[in-house]
């Protein structure tokens, strides 16, 4: 039995695919859009299409970027001797918010997790080694999540990068164990950055 006209049903189905959106939230959003004027709906649709059209991965750090390089890689005023390695683009935002770090980033786009079929080759590891190998980097800060997979990724990278002669550090805990970086508040994350330690 069809409760909804087909276009509404299609919108509901698409909305329900989004994370955190169940049938009830989808219905609320859909009715909100329907009640609003056509311009508002058009702006939302355009923004969605535009973000997919214009955003790709930065050619250097693999953060999201609108141009060839992301805004951070494009900023020549930063400290070129330090790279902070994170799992996801959202982690870059979390660390930028602390204001404690002035170097550049490298986004791995995940963490090592063999049960999910993700090994070093599925991540941006080769590109990181190339960046460090090119010279001029004196410190690599490993800021992967403090869970089992993040810690393993950090261990793996430190084995790989140390022979290249750079200093490899790991952000200190102080982060809630088992937590994701994106949920950490600025103070905790800032303190953890300050207290980073050498990896052995």
């Amino acid at each position, binding site marked *: 039995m069809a409760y909804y006209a087909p276009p509404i049903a299609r919108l509901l189905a698409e909305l329900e695919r989004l994370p955190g959106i169940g049938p009830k939230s989808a219905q609320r959003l859909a009715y909100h859009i329907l009640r609003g004027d056509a311009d508002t709906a058009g702006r939302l649709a355009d923004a969605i299409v535009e973000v997919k059209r214009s955003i790709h991965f930065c050619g250097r750090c693999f953060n999201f970027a609108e141009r060839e390089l992301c805004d951070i890689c494009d900023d020549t005023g930063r400290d070129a001797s330090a790279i902070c390695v994170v799992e996801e683009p959202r982690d870059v935002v979390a660390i930028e918010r602390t204001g404690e770090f002035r170097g550049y980033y490298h986004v791995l786009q995940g963490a*090592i*997790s*063999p*049960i999910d079929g993700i*090994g*070093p080759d599925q991540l941006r590891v080769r590109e990181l080694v190339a960046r460090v190998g090119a010279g001029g980097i004196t410190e690599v800060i490993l800021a992967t999540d403090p869970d*089992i*997979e993040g*810690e*393993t*990724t950090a*261990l*793996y990278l430190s*084995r790989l990068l140390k022979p290249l002669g750079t200093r490899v550090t790991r952000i200190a805990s102080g982060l809630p*164990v*088992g937590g994701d970086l994106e949920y950490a508040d600025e103070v905790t994350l800032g303190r953890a950055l300050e207290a980073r330690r050498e990896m052995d």
Partner: protein
Amino acid sequence: MWITRLGLRDFRNYKHRDFTFGEGLTIFVGANATGKTTIAEAIQTIATGESFRKPKWDETIRWGCREALVTMEAEGETAAVSVELHITADGRRGWKVDGVTRKQTRSATRFVPVVVFTPDDLTLVKGPAEQRRSAIDALGDQLSSGYATLRRDYARVVRQRNALLRDDAPDSHLTPWDEHLVHLGARLHLHRRRLLVRVAEAAAPVYAHISAGESLAIVIDDRCGIGLQDPTRAPSQEELETSLQAELRHRASDERARRTSLVGPHRDDIGFTLDGRDARTFASQGQQRTIALAWKWAEVNVVAGMLGKSPVLILDDVMSELDESRRRALTDLVRREGQTFITTTNTGYFEPGLLESADVVTTGGDA
């Protein structure tokens, strides 16, 4: 704390039933398949988040219903708490404490410690090693959230490492997992040892009492390369890490050939000796059951000693599995301080004195 009320809505075969409990002993009497074990399960589930039946949670919803609800009210000397557990058709569980949603099961289940004794526990001595490991680990989980986290993290490392071994991944991919396995494995093994010492100390006098003087000891048969059977002889974290590393190197080709992790506390076993002889091979059926009984008794004492509150004891249909002398011993345990729930098909197993002091509830009324 003790449980004053239990409510079941569409939980297994119960459509709607509320119970009020006293501080002492409650006995549920009924024929088979009248829902006695379901009550025992509901009490354990609402209090600890675990069920000895190990169900998929959506299986616990009454047939044809969308949601099951279990509620509990508990009271202590200074505080009272009410806990709600909603189980939905997708197998998800939602907790509320005093009406406020709790995201983590752990934060909703730390009020009433529980020790459960079912007929399955009677095979503790001869059953698979997994049964003995989970007996000690379930106790550890309940005593400390640190133990629970460590165990979960370690289990995850083993799963990840096994995935690599299955895929014949290069050594360089295995190395970081080895480091985790060594570090977390050593910690888990040491925590288990410490906990086993407590259980052994509490179980030995109980066993001696029931058996008229035989001496029970608990030993560890480790797969961590340390070879110290006596749990009281604890190595240091460093020693254990060193031996785990050596054992990993030693068994590397075996692990490659069998494509699974063979070294570490997930393979440890726990053994029992009676007057120095291995109970698995030498003990009679009766002696093995006495060991299981002494272990449960020890759990009650360890929980009471470490948490400073007597746990709720649930005995699901075990009376019928024990002979006269062991039943008497179990009755002594029931007489201790603390709330107890017993399910049985027959009140003839109980001394008249015990029955008089108990609330007897007949099951099968509303199901």
